[in-house]
């Protein structure tokens, strides 16, 4: 028996109800207002909600547009985003999210389309998606691309499922071992585990590169059951490993598939292609390399590119299509409405611009490494003493010799108006810096100046000018309330606390709170809006 379903929502008007009657009943003499006056609710009596909700003042205070506008401004003013300063997070690729890229996502043609609208109404989306898939294939050297995974982690999961599907289709159901170098991001082993694979960790050498001897041994040991290797390129240590082709070859020789994690793709577009140098599958982070903004922690898009042999195992998008892998996201094309951002980026940059972006990303990282190398130790470099698109500063010697921690440096950067680099990944006690191609030389210099000034403050602790428990680093960040407090008993001046560089007097970010106590919060877990009484005193 065929049925028709009708769902009503906030946008439905009374004229729509009348139109629906016309469609379903034909001619009728119904009077909507009369029915609305007498019709009974259709919820089961014992399921009618009786308890209150959203009683907190936050949900009962900002109902005029003026109040709402100011509340949103007040919150935004507390934060650092790319509209204030560079965010040099290694592995995160915080590049420009250009206005022209953002404009189309709110065009009604894109924003008001239902995911299950009939095929003949979605031609624009399909054309844009087809073009984008081709563009991304061209950029990576893969044969096919699925845009369904709506986060990088989902891409990893979908990519491993494709590998699993491939092995199963060949009767190799026993191929379930996944090799993962110890330097991998934690999502790699987590994704492998979710796909029912056994993770075997392979070693890295002192330079942070995959230990090829260990890889050979483990690939041989697990040859019979080898499913895949998951390797990040350039490595999580920010280096183009010379041995990548050999790594891919070893795994292929033992019947495994090569998963190249595309987290660092921003160092590769236009200069090398994972789909060509040995990868069978990669996920891309469109929210890194291809300009989708981070949104404070999402949305993301994590498409996967695959070689021809894996295409049938890509996530299913439509019934009866060529792609017959399992569906990983609720919607066929995942986060479809933000795909125009990437389309716009690639369209505007073109072949030359994309390559230039990669080259300047590498230039910016090497320029910073060069400026900072007299003050901090650059942990890893490649064959020619260069880094890739990011670099790791080793601050463990500072901790060992002076007692100032990576946390102290990260929090002190806030006083200088910067978001900290990535802390303690991939190596504990280090800072990983990725400037991206979008930051100007002036901004790179401003950040380097801050890092060098901080090193000078470290030296002031080292030479005894400041005590380890009373210096601008361990007490960072400094709030306006602290700096303007009536009492000041610290060993350093108020101006050193707030304006350690003169340039800050023109443009100062004031952190709204001092350094967070994580342990206190985990011991006293509160995960909803606290009563106003906590703000008293």
């Amino acid at each position: 028996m065929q049925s028709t379903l009708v769902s009503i929502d906030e946008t439905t008007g009374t004229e729509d109800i009348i139109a629906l009657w016309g469609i379903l009943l034909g001619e009728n003499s119904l009077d909507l207002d009369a029915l609305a006056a007498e019709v009974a609710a259709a919820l089961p009596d014992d399921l009618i909600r009786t308890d209150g909700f959203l009683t907190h003042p936050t949900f009962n205070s900002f109902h005029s547009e003026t109040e709402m506008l100011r509340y949103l401004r007040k919150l935004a003013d507390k934060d650092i985003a790319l509209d204030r300063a560079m965010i040099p997070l290694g592995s995160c690729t915080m590049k420009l999210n250009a206005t022209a890229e953002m404009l189309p996502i709110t065009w009604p043609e894109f924003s008001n389309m239902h995911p299950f609208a009939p095929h003949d109404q979605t031609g624009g989306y399909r054309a844009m998606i087809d073009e984008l898939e081709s563009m991304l294939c061209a950029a990576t050297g893969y044969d096919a691309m699925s845009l369904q995974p709506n986060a990088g982690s989902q891409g990893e999961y979908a990519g491993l499922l494709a590998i699993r599907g491939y092995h199963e289709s060949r009767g190799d159901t026993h191929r379930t071992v996944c090799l993962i170098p110890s330097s991998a991001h934690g999502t790699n082993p987590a994704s492998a585990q979710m796909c029912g694979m056994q993770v075997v960790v392979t070693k890295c050498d002192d330079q942070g590169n995959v230990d090829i001897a260990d890889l050979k041994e483990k690939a041989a040991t697990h040859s019979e059951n080898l499913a895949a290797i998951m390797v990040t390129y350039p490595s999580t240590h920010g280096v183009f490993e010379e041995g990548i082709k050999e790594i891919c070859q070893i795994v292929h020789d033992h019947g495994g598939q090569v998963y190249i994690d595309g987290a660092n793709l921003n160092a590769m577009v236009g200069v090398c292609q994972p789909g060509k140098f040995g990868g069978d599958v990669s996920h891309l982070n469109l929210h890194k390399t291809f300009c989708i903004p981070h949104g404070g922690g999402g949305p993301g898009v994590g498409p996967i590119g695959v070689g021809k042999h894996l295409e049938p195992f890509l996530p299913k998008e439509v019934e009866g299509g060529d792609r017959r892998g399992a569906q990983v996201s609720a919607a066929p094309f995942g986060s479809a409405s933000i795909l125009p951002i990437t389309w716009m980026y690639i369209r505007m940059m073109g072949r030359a611009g994309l390559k230039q972006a990669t080259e300047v990303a590498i230039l910016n990282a090497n320029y910073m490494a060069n400026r900072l190398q007299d003050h901090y130790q650059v942990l890893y470099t490649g064959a020619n003493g260069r880094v890739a698109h990011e670099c790791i500063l080793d601050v463990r010697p500072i901790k060992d010799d002076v007692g100032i921690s990576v946390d102290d440096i990260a929090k002190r950067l806030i006083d200088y108006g910067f978001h900290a680099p990535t802390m303690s990944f991939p190596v504990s006690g280090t800072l990983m810096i990725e400037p991206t191609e979008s930051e100007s030389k002036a901004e790179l210099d401003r950040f380097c100046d801050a890092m060098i000034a901080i090193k000078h403050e470290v030296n002031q602790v080292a030479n005894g000018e400041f005590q380890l428990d009373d210096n601008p680093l361990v007490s960072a960040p400094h709030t306006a309330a602290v700096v303007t407090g009536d009492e000041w008993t610290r060993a350093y001046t108020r101006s050193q606390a707030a304006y350690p560089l003169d340039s800050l007097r023109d443009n100062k970010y004031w952190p709204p709170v001092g350094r967070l106590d994580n342990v206190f919060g985990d011991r006293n877990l509160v995960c909803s809006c606290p009563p106003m009484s906590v703000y008293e005193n």
Partner: protein
Amino acid sequence: MLQKKRTLADLQNAAEFIARHVGPSTEDQQQMLSVLGCANLQELTAQVVPEAIAMTEDLAIVDGCPEAQALAELREIASHNKVFKSFIGQGYYGTITPNVIQRNILENPAWYTAYTPYQPEISQGRLEALINFQTMISDLTGMEMSNSSMLDEGTAAAEAMALCQRMSKSKSSRFFVDSDCLPQTIEVIKTRAEPMGIEVEVADPADFAGEAFGILLQYPGASGEVRDYRDIIGKVQAQKGLAVMAADILSLVLLESPGSLGADVAIGTTQRFGVPLGFGGPHAGYMATREAYKRNLPGRLVGLSQDANGNPAYRLALQTREQHIRREKATSNICTAQVLLAVIAGMYAVYHGPEGLQRIAQRVHLLTSVLAEGLRLNGMVPTNKHWFDTLTLHTGSRTDAIIKAAAEREMNLRQIDAEHIGLD
């Protein structure tokens, strides 16, 4: 300034955007290169990228173009989308994004260019916005705690299944799924279950019998029916299984909450709280549960703590749960969530408040009931006895004609072959 003569091609500035996107000017690049002892970008790149893998050919991508041209081309492509009024539902609903939210959050780089709040001292604004979201979810679902968003309703359901398997004391490997669940949710559940060795049974929960470590119930169902699941939840829990309810966020304004019905986990999407349809995403999914399961709640969780001066301050709580710490012992690989969309949905609730939400929910419900009553008076009785916003109508052989008549008026209805989703 001395004016030099330039060609038209030069003045067209086709590479305009490249120089807007790339930070250092050509002169600055030269200066930086000279610091590194390189003559040009190619020389530096050659020192960095191993020769064995370096591309020798150009990318097979067309040349770039200025912003205005790219926008015009995309406009043309977008014009091939025909946006009809949607009555399709199935987990995705029309919604009105308050303009003040669209302009000041969705279109505001202060919100959309921010990073995940790992550095809480510079993230208090978005952390407060997220705790608003968590409060909204825990209030509406009647659960003790909510995380700060999931990727979508389907993955939230799959994660809930995994949570049930870890936390339930049942030894069963069976997960029971209400046949009135959204079809895409059932698909994503099956994807996740297969490699984990979980046996998924899709059936009418009224027929629940035997053992299962968990059950997923849709509230209201995909058919629109609103069922009282108290007895079934009790039955599942009596044999040590856990109960998950996939609940429509707007309906919870009028309906008893999953928590009050005894559910262990509530999941769903907050799309219809001001987040545009967008052909399926991105939208913020949600998951809420009992505090007892806090260490098994996937995704990010914002909590209150205090700063060095003893003042209240927010930060991500219980981070040791996450995959970057637990690696292969991790139970979920979730990293990126849907923060921007969760912020929008939370602010939709802030903007409307409980009374505004009640007005919206009651209006949706009243219009649905008026539609149903008009149909009933003319002999077309919905097959669902109760509803919040969705009616199932047995239209039989007339179905195709109805769908076509609707399309002529630029309206989309949902058509199903009842057998496929297990209705009678």
